[in-house]
């Protein structure tokens, strides 16, 4: 489920998801390890390589198949549904951080999307001018003054640090959806949800990550830099606190979102990894 929360990359400039490669070379100097806040670099790089292999052989092929087989409106509905399912956790963290404007946005999104959006399958709130923002316990801990600790690459889950790892675990326990599933002994539901959101996330970053890997001299170092900068930016909440955009004019409904997916899908496919 931690796969749900990944920074994104845009205009082909930035993205993060799972961890990946790097060139095998001697370890860094002590001073350098400090500069990158990565004292466990050798171990991290080894795990990164394993994650890369898993990504290449399992996750990426599955994500590509997912994108080929499932039609865009359905993928969008899955995405919106899982985003809505995660919204209570976002709301709780908005409140814990004293971001009451953001909390109001999230609460509004839950109410609109769960009712009008039929249990969260359609993101009407965005069309009403209340866009999604991410939030998690790692960010909450940071606003409470807790240091990130050393950079970590987790098996399968990828870039992290002790603070964000604790946050991920905490968010997992707090998640109402998972609690309901546990109460009814439906562990498979939680697992299916984590799996689908992981595949969804990966399928949305196929070109971005392939592009960064292709153009990087040291992919590991690039991902590390992107992760740390992106988390710092999320903690600042600048982007999230921009004024809300104007509501979409004209017919409200799933159609604009769907036509968007269809319109952007072909070029993305054409440029696909190598």
């Amino acid at each position, binding site marked *: 489920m931690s796969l749900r929360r990944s920074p994104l990359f*845009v205009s082909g400039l930035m993205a993060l998801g799972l961890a990946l490669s790097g060139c095998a070379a001697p370890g860094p100097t002590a001073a350098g390890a400090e500069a990158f806040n990565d004292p466990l670099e050798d171990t991290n790089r080894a795990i990164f390589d394993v994650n890369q292999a898993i990504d290449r052989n399992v996750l990426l092929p599955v994500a590509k198949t997912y994108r080929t087989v499932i039609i865009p409106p359905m993928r969008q509905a899955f995405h919106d549904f899982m985003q809505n399912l995660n919204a209570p956790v976002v709301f709780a963290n908005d409140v814990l951080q004293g971001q009451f404007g953001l909390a109001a946005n999230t609460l509004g999104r839950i109410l609109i999307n769960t009712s009008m959006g039929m249990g969260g399958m359609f993101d009407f709130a965005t069309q009403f001018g209340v866009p999604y*923002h991410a939030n998690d316990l790692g960010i909450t801990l940071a606003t409470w003054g807790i240091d990130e600790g050393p950079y970590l690459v987790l098996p399968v889950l990828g870039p992290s640090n002790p603070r964000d790892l604790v946050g991920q675990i905490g968010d997992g326990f707090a998640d109402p959806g998972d609690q309901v599933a546990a109460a009814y002994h439906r562990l498979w539901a939680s697992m299916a949800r984590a799996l689908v959101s992981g595949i969804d996330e990966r399928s949305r970053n196929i070109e971005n990550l392939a592009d960064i890997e*292709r*153009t990087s001299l040291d992919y590991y*170092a690039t991902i590390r830099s992107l992760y740390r900068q992106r988390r710092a930016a999320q903690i600042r909440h600048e982007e999230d606190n*921009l004024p809300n955009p104007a509501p979409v004019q004209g017919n409200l409904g799933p159609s604009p979102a769907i036509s968007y*997916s269809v319109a952007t899908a072909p070029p993305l496919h054409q440029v696909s990894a190598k």
Partner: protein
Amino acid sequence: MTRRLQLIGTLILLAGLLRAAPAGAQDAQAFVAALGNQAIQVLGPSVSPAQRVARFRQLFRDDFDVPGIGQFVLGRYWRTASPEEQQEFLRLFQEYIVQAYAGRLGEYGGEPFRVIGSRPSGDETVVSSVIERPNAGRVQVDWYLITRGGAPKITDVYVGGVSMKVTQRDEFSSVIQRNGGRVDALLAQLRQRLAAAR
């Protein structure tokens, strides 16, 4: 399609021009808006890869502070590099960025961005813009500008709070560090990469 892009570009330009802001800041905003307009037109998905590289090279040379960025991304190793290495690095770095980003920008779907304001930051001006993506949320793109020889030049671009300049510096520093602090190791890798791209 092109018509629509032109219209969007014009709107962006107008939006930038209409903002109430101090003269310098207004110039900076107009510059960014015009650059966005230009970029959407010359780098769109319909442009052939070779053409895109050529056009982006031109744009990068004209509108970016290449020497300043180059010096920054080499970090503390700029001082340890010999003058010849510095010169060669600037040449290789420029071409490396052109090759890397021309491809990435080709995937940019051309969603319009709007300039939302500007603020001073030291001797630089920061122009903020936002890209609203219907299904993927919004992204703030901040442009750092400095005036060199009477013309604004871009010194850095932040996408979603991530500095392109810092990312590049972190990567290059890592390469140099893992090769015993030798700048020529980075130069060799850049040369190799560019040769492969041809």
